[in-house]
């Protein structure tokens, strides 16, 4: 009867029986609500499964400059700077809410309850429903989105960048790194030696070795890694799993939470939830250890990317300032003594505004008390000043209100590097992203429109004198890379603070992972080419 209710096929007579049963039996009630709650959870989970989350069609640059060492070293700057579309699912919800609001405001009455169905139904029947076809082909569930020094155990097995990843596919690496991005948006980075089988649309079986898992969208939540002794389920997070030859498993949480279930028989099975910086060990017999600290240094968390290959061919920088805004807060500046927040851009008529940190992302909309617009406000400014040759990077974006008409920026002293998420054209001409440098470079077409509700990756190189290079990587489609260069004397020989910055009436600027890498001075002046491939 409960099944018929789920399936929507219940008859009137059956419903009467069900009603009578539920009225007289408490166990039946619990059974019914649990079963229907499961049905509801499946609806919730699967309604997002049809969303075609863009995958990286071009791999990240696997430059030999930065070897794939774990984070924490002087080159870790680049790992943390890419692929961090953190909090993607709440952003997606907020966007959906705003769209809903707009729809109501204009009196639209048409409600598309399953918008993702449009995408799913547009696909051919065979692709949509392979399980029912006479000769089903393996479904593609993602792509290989990056490799570095990757050596398969079987020399005949080819691992190529951008190759599709199918259900049931197995990977065995003797060494090196391979990143899989599932269509849900979940990512795993396999770290050789490793054996991994793709066993679902959002997970796999790790029989040996290490991987790092992360999710960037709500559809990716629930990324599940099984091992011989445990099942690790993501709850909106970044985590590492390591499987020993015996099958014993250690799971670490770097961000958010995970659940770890032991693989023992039902009667002895244990389930534990781990929070950030915790780890737990399941031995080969399925026994669960007490919680310990996480060891992030043992895991590669991002594949490398060199935003300025011409500049950084043979040198390493030193990270001198880094902030991940991981402590949610509205009590500034006490929680972040190295920053000032919500101050007007110097020389403008803006008012102070309140910044907040929610879900590990710095956000600034407007003054929280007066509701006044926050025009040209520095969401956060370093109290420390910097000088000399450096690279500054930040994950940066804007929400979808006033689509494209507010900018976000990074300010190095008096040099403000600006772009407009969501902006595509002006007066009929392409001006995608509307990149500019205030007072130095006019509005420029970036060649792609960085989307709203996404954190993009902005890098600025400063030679310490007057030459700058900019590299902006699209946070959704990493093949979209905008590069430019310019000269500006304002910061020459000066020490300056660095700010992340927004403008506009209503949009929320979003910022994360601001880092400053100090580079050694060079004796000869650099020649910067317009294409960004500058040669010192």
């Amino acid at each position, binding site marked *: 009867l409960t099944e018929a209710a789920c399936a929507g096929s219940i008859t009137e007579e059956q419903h009467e029986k069900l009603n009578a049963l539920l009225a007289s039996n408490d166990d039946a009630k619990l059974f019914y609500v649990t079963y229907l709650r*499961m049905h509801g959870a499946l609806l919730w989970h699967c309604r997002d499964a049809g969303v075609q989350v863009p995958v990286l069609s071009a791999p990240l640059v696997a430059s030999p400059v930065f070897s794939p060492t774990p984070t924490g070293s002087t080159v870790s700057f680049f790992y943390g700077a890419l692929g961090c579309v953190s909090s993607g699912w709440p952003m997606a919800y907020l966007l959906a809410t705003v769209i809903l609001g707009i729809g109501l405001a204009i009196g639209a009455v048409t409600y598309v309850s399953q918008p993702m169905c449009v995408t799913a139904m547009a696909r051919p029947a065979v692709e949509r429903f392979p399980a029912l076809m006479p000769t089903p082909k393996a479904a593609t569930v993602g792509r290989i989105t990056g490799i570095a020094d990757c050596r398969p155990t079987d020399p005949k097995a080819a691992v190529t960048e951008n190759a599709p990843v199918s259900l049931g596919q197995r990977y065995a690496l003797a060494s090196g790194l391979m990143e899989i991005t599932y269509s849900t948006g979940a990512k795993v980075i396999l770290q050789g030696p490793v054996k991994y089988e793709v066993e679902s649309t959002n997970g796999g079986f790790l029989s040996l070795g290490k991987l790092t898992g992360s999710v960037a969208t709500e559809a990716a939540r629930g990324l599940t890694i099984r091992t011989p002794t445990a099942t690790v389920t993501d709850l909106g997070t970044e985590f590492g799993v390591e499987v020993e030859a015996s099958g014993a498993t250690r799971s670490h949480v770097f961000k958010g939470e995970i659940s770890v279930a032991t693989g023992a028989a039902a009667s002895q099975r244990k389930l534990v939830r781990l929070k950030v910086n915790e780890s737990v060990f399941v031995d080969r017999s399925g026994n669960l250890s007490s919680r310990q600290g996480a060891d992030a240094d043992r895991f590669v968390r991002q594949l490398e990317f060199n935003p300025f290959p011409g500049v950084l061919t043979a040198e390493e920088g030193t990270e001198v300032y880094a902030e991940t805004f991981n402590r949610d807060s509205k009590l500034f500046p006490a929680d972040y003594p190295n920053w000032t927040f919500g101050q007007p851009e110097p020389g403008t008529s803006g008012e102070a505004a309140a910044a907040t940190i929610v879900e590990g992302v710095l956000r600034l909309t*407007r003054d929280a008390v007066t509701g006044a617009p926050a025009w040209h406000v520095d969401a956060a400014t370093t109290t420390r000043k910097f000088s000399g040759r450096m690279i500054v990077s930040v994950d940066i974006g804007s929400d979808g209100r006033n689509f494209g008409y507010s900018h976000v920026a990074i300010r190095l002293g008096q040099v403000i590097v600006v772009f407009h998420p969501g902006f595509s054209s002006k007066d009929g001409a392409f001006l995608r992203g509307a990149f500019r440098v205030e007072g130095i470079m006019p509005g420029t077409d970036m060649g792609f429109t960085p989307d709203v509700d996404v954190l993009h990756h902005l890098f600025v190189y400063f030679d310490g004198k007057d030459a700058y290079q900019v590299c902006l990587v699209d946070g959704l489609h990493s093949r979209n890379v905008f590069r430019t260069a310019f000269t500006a004397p304002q910061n020459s020989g000066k020490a300056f603070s660095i700010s992340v910055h927004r403008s506009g009436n209503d949009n929320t600027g979003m910022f994360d992972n601001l880092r400053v890498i100090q580079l050694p001075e060079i004796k000869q002046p650099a020649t910067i080419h317009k294409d960004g491939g500058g040669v010192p």
Partner: protein
Amino acid sequence: MPAVLMHDMDAPLHNSFNEQFLRKQREVFAYIVTLVPDRNDAEDIFQETCLQLFQKAAEFDCAKSFFPWACGFALNEVRRFRRAHYREKCQFDDGVFEALAELQIRSAETIDARLGLLMDCMARLPVEKKELLLHCYSCGESLNALAVEFKIDPPTLRKRLERIRKTLFECIETGSEPSPKTLEGLRGH
């Protein structure tokens, strides 16, 4: 959404509300489904509930549990729906309806613990069954329509889906692997 709501949504005062909402929205949706199993009706009610929640966000006491507070709004919307559709058949009696609603709040911890295993249990399903489940749930089309489109008997498709759901339920109830009998049944299709 009225402008005031959009303003409220960003106010720092409501950070806790936003966080709780984002964490619990799936449970609230599933709560609605238990009372109104039709997915389209449930989606509509959920949408109305969300509007109510955001309008009342300032009243949320972060010291209290979000789920029962949010379910109160959802329950009101479901009651409104029942009143509007009272002529339709297949509605539970008021007593049963209220008891099901109340039970979910009272037994929230037990139910949440079981549903916490759902993703794990899905991962254990045979790949082709998992695919079938995802495709059937991912689209709003009726099973009959899907069955016609793929030229199979609707009862066969319904039966396959039923078996998969039962397997999942067995798994979340016991936290165990599907029984050999269940697996055998699945392989037979």
